[in-house]
């Protein structure tokens, strides 16, 4: 088991190094280097804008740019720059926002609760529906219920979350006026207002997750129900509900936890669009905003942290999975 954990840990470190290289390279491919971005559009405006004194101001701008580049180490070889950048990250410095020159890490962490809240609510909603529905579909295999659940989950996969969100806004927000349609108010400021606003976005996300969980749980349970130990349990006279609850579900819930782990780890993917639709100022909102403002250090920070979070959650899931299921450990040979 120790070897398994060490191997898995090493693999994660390698993945994180790759991730950092990809993000670093992607940022360098972006138009304009960090120094130009730091000086900002108004400084660059001298170059493009003025006609009369432009040569004087142009040289002034270039001079400033050179200075800043030296200061930021941009005149050094690219791998040195990368290593400096990594050293900064390891020391908790993810860079400074081009917008207001504040460190990006606290800003990103400040947005995390809003996104986490959406995700936790969505997962809870999804579990409440998905677990009974998945069990029912698997137990009553090929029945009307099974087909109904199957249709629901197929539809859930096909409906883009942003369109579903729009429909919800239109129906529940505008026509019925039950919920405010957008905005975010921190939970600690006004719990009621916060939950009112969180309901529609988490419902939207929750429905997608429900489709995902149901499909997974049903398939998993169907497979488990064919195992020998289930036949043994039914041979020794246990009722069907006892078999499902005590034996089959126990097995499937472990796999469901893996899926939930992956969903939570990939939280950003799930919420970028939803946050945009509902004006929910979480991480996804910040990401899209930063991209449009060309705040690359911010974008870089968010993407790195998101990938880091996903890798860590995956690592934890794999390790706990290995602890719970010895067969996985044996298979692991990469």
């Amino acid at each position, binding site marked *: 088991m120790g070897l398994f954990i060490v191997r898995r840990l090493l693999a994660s470190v390698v*993945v994180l190094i790759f991730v950092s290289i990809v993000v670093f390279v992607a940022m360098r491919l972006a138009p304009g280097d960090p120094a130009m971005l730091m000086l900002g559009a108004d400084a660059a405006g001298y170059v493009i804008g003025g006609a009369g004194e432009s040569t004087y101001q142009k040289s002034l701008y270039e001079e400033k740019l050179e200075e800043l580049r030296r200061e930021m180490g941009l005149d050094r070889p690219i791998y040195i720059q990368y290593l400096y950048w990594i050293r900064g990250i390891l020391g908790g410095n993810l860079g400074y926002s081009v917008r207001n020159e504040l460190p990006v890490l606290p800003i990103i962490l400040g947005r995390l609760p809003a996104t986490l809240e959406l995700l936790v609510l969505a997962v809870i909603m999804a579990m409440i529906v998905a677990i009974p529905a998945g069990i029912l579909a698997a137990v009553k295999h090929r029945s009307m219920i099974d087909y109904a659940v199957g249709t629901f989950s197929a539809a859930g996969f096909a409906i*883009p979350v942003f*369109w579903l969100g729009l*429909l919800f806004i239109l129906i529940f927000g*505008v026509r019925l006026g039950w919920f405010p349609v957008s905005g975010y108010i921190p939970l600690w400021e006004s719990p009621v207002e916060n939950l009112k606003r969180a309901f529609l976005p988490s419902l939207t996300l929750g429905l997608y997750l429900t489709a995902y969980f149901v499909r997974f749980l049903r398939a998993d349970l169907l497979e488990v129900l064919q195992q020998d130990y289930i036949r043994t349990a039914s041979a020794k006279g246990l009722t069907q509900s006892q078999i499902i609850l005590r034996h089959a579900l126990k097995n499937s819930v472990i796999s469901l936890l893996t899926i939930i782990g992956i969903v939570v780890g*990939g939280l950003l993917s799930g919420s970028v669009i939803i946050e945009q639709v509902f004006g929910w100022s979480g991480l996804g909102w910040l990401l899209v905003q930063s991209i449009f403002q060309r705040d690359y250090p911010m*974008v870089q920070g968010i993407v790195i942290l998101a990938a880091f979070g*996903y890798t860590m959650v995956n690592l934890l899931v794999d390790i706990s999975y290995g602890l719970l299921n010895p067969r996985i450990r044996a298979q692991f040979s990469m």
Partner: protein
Amino acid sequence: MGKSLEVATSKEQIGPVAEELPRRSERSRAWRRYKANRMAVIAGAFIILLCLMAIFADTIVPHDPLEIYSGKRGVGPSSEHLMGFDHVGRDLFSRVIYGSRVALIVGLGASSIAVIIGVMVGVTAGYFSGWPDSLLSRLTDTLMAFPIIALLILLASIVGPSLVTTVVVIGVTSWAIYARVVRAQVLSLKRQEFVVAALAIGASDRRIIFRHILPNVLAPVIVLVTLGVGTIIILEAALSFLGLGIQPPTPSWGGTLSDGRAFILLFPHIAMAPGIMIVLTVLAFNLLGDGLRDALDPRQKDIT
């Protein structure tokens, strides 16, 4: 009962049938299994229709998708304009028809790129184990570690949004799943007798890969592609929705949805048609994929 007895007694009737049975190829058996799945057949027909619609968009659209009808901003559906007008007064029905082009070009184009990269990576990793496998597997993990939407947005914003970048960017970010599946498939194929036999008689790696391995990974890849096209169409719509995909005035479903969102209070009908088209198209590709999986790979039935 009586009917089958009658058939069985006539030798002329048994003859050809009995001879045909063993000759029936795996492909025709797969086709029979596919035809038995009514939903998959409907889905397949829908996709063929959609393709025809996209190809002949120029001739079938009732109106010019770019023409602005003055004074018609946000006017609802009528018999002349089936889906009404968008927020600047363009015919929505024609725009939705043209939007199918973008959806299919991106869906199929990006899938092709993803499949080519994914299969190459998967076969290389699975066939030549050792360091190429470790390296490529970590690379695949890396891609999977990125929140795909964030990576897409990032790349699209760097390269600048357009149809070509949308296709390429989605293609190069979504091959990981193919690589994983193909690698696993190749690993198990490598141990099978026919591959070992081919190795034993001295067949080259190239011959083994192209003659023995690739044909056998085709079925799962086809199924994955079909399921993947739907996901890609949604990704494209999401990108265009954020303004980072197809640029106006080119009609795309995601772009129209984005207009619909901006005018959701004033003209709620704008968001309906493209949304419904996305749902139907993605649903059709998913059902087709399920049908193909059951037909091509009956053992994998019911496993997500």
